[in-house]
């Protein structure tokens, strides 16, 4: 019975075809390359790399893009990871928002082979999954320990912990995890929720066993040599119900410069991303997780199947942002310049 349900959900999730780029309407995809720093490098889905001073932070690296038929037998696609992810020994932080396969499947490989000096920061569940492939000597940080938390089930807004920041090894970055939530998928059935309490022996095979765990958003500061914030970035890898994922007030009266937010399942969440944009008023919004990631040719981009009216989301962001602020929807493997100071 469980298998029948899983197959049904799988069929619903991947029903239909990936949509042609014309579905984006007048949105012009950004495709910049060889920009000077500081810049975000986009890997597709919710994956980014950000280099600053002599360190780097990596977010949600995912390259494998298994096809719908592979979702019951998932394995990282090593060739795709090697082709897509540059070796980044200067990366000292690898941040993940939640533990679904399209955010975590490739992380163990990336930690072991691409970012040998990075500490992993994520939920307990994400940590338990990754231990299947990452040795116990490798440093993991339980982000739930420092997570900014909501004082009530409906807010009003996350509260930062006294020691809520993780600092990078050389002091170029600091990152604060924030209690967030995950949008329901198109089926409205929460088959990928749940958590793990113990380390796994092998990576899960079925998509369903990549359990969500605690979903987190991240506030990331780029610091100067004196420890002063130069840029502040808000990153989340799932559409979330307000005020889940909203940045807390870290007590320094500093605003948000860049908001990175996912498009996937946006229509399932009331007032997303309008409420977040109203609360943050950033100079730059980067829209990610907009493209289809169920197999296919990465060079032949498609819009995420089942996703409706991405242009409506774009219009909502545009009308909620200050006029001078920018919106970028990047092509995978392109770059995004951070706004001028």
């Amino acid at each position, binding site marked *: 019975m469980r298998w029948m349900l899983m197959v049904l959900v799988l069929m619903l999730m991947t029903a239909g075809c990936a949509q042609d780029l014309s579905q984006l309407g007048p949105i012009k995809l950004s495709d910049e390359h060889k920009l000077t720093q500081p810049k975000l490098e986009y890997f597709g889905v919710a994956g980014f790399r950000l280099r600053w001073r002599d360190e780097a932070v990596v977010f949600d690296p995912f390259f494998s893009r298994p096809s719908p038929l592979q979702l019951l037998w998932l394995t990282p696609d090593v060739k795709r990871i090697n082709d897509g992810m540059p070796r980044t020994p200067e990366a000292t932080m690898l941040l993940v928002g939640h533990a679904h396969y399209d955010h975590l499947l490739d992380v163990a490989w990336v930690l072991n082979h691409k970012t040998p000096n990075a500490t992993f920061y994520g939920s307990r569940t994400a940590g338990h999954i990754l231990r299947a492939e990452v040795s116990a000597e490798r440093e993991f940080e339980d982000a739930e320990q420092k997570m900014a*938390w*909501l004082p009530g*089930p409906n807010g009003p807004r996350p509260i930062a912990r006294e020691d809520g920041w993780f600092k990078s090894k050389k002091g170029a970055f600091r990152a604060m995890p924030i209690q967030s*939530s995950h949008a329901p998928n198109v089926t409205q059935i929460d088959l990928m929720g749940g958590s793990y309490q113990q380390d796994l022996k092998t990576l899960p095979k079925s998509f369903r066993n990549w359990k969500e765990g*605690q979903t987190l958003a991240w506030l990331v500061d780029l610091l100067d040599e004196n420890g002063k914030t130069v840029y502040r970035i808000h990153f989340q890898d799932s559409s979330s*119900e307000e005020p889940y994922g909203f940045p807390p007030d870290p007590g320094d009266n500093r605003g948000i410069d860049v908001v990175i937010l996912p498009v996937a399942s946006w229509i399932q969440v009331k007032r997303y991303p309008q409420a977040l944009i109203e609360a943050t008023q950033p100079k730059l919004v980067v829209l990610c997780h907009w493209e289809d990631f169920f197999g296919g040719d990465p060079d032949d981009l498609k819009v995420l199947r089942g996703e409706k009216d991405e242009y409506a989301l774009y219009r909502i962001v545009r009308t909620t942002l200050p006029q001078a602020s920018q919106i970028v929807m990047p092509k995978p493997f392109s770059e995004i310049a951070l706004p001028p100071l």
Partner: protein
Amino acid sequence: MPKPLVTTPLVVALATLLGQPLPASAANYQTLCQVKEGSASDTATFWFDTRSLCAYSGMQVQQGRTYQVKMQVPDQWRWSDRQIPANPGGYECPLEFPLSWLMALSTSMRRHPDLPWFQTMVRIGTAGDDIYALPIKPEQLLPSEHCDPEPEIEEWPKAWRCPPDAVAVEGGRIFNSSFTARSDGPLFFYVNDVGGGSVLGDLLYRNNQGCARVTITESQQ
């Protein structure tokens, strides 16, 4: 139509169809109740989530000793079984027909059929049957008009979670209780509801709402 009117008959029908003796299957505590390594101590303060099938208190108790349990329920974390207002002693208001009949029909499916819905339970050990219904004494009684009309309960977002264990939240109601341990072992908490079996799992615990900051101390008497 109120949601319990839909879900309760559904659960009765499902349980009947699947032939699952729910309270018996709920005895699978070794899977449900897990001790976090390295966390045992002689006193404990933690946030109890009413959705938990078996929440570890972080405390080891010893046979023959008496323990005081203080449960603080802040207003924003007040308890309910979906839309039914509750507190650590059980439902706060008498149920009205037809919900009262439907709930009465499902009493045999509770983990402890002879104890009230939402009664706070403690158990000692991951195995065995050393279970206690905490006698709950509120520090302040509810006003007599509290259930007339019954307070409206808002449905919370699915992603809600209790505050971090280290954080205290001011205000709310305090409920006191105590018990004397009949055995040694780790101490767990849960509310009396339908669940714990291999089929339903925590399905009917997921509609529980509410948290309590629980402090357990050994009685000096």
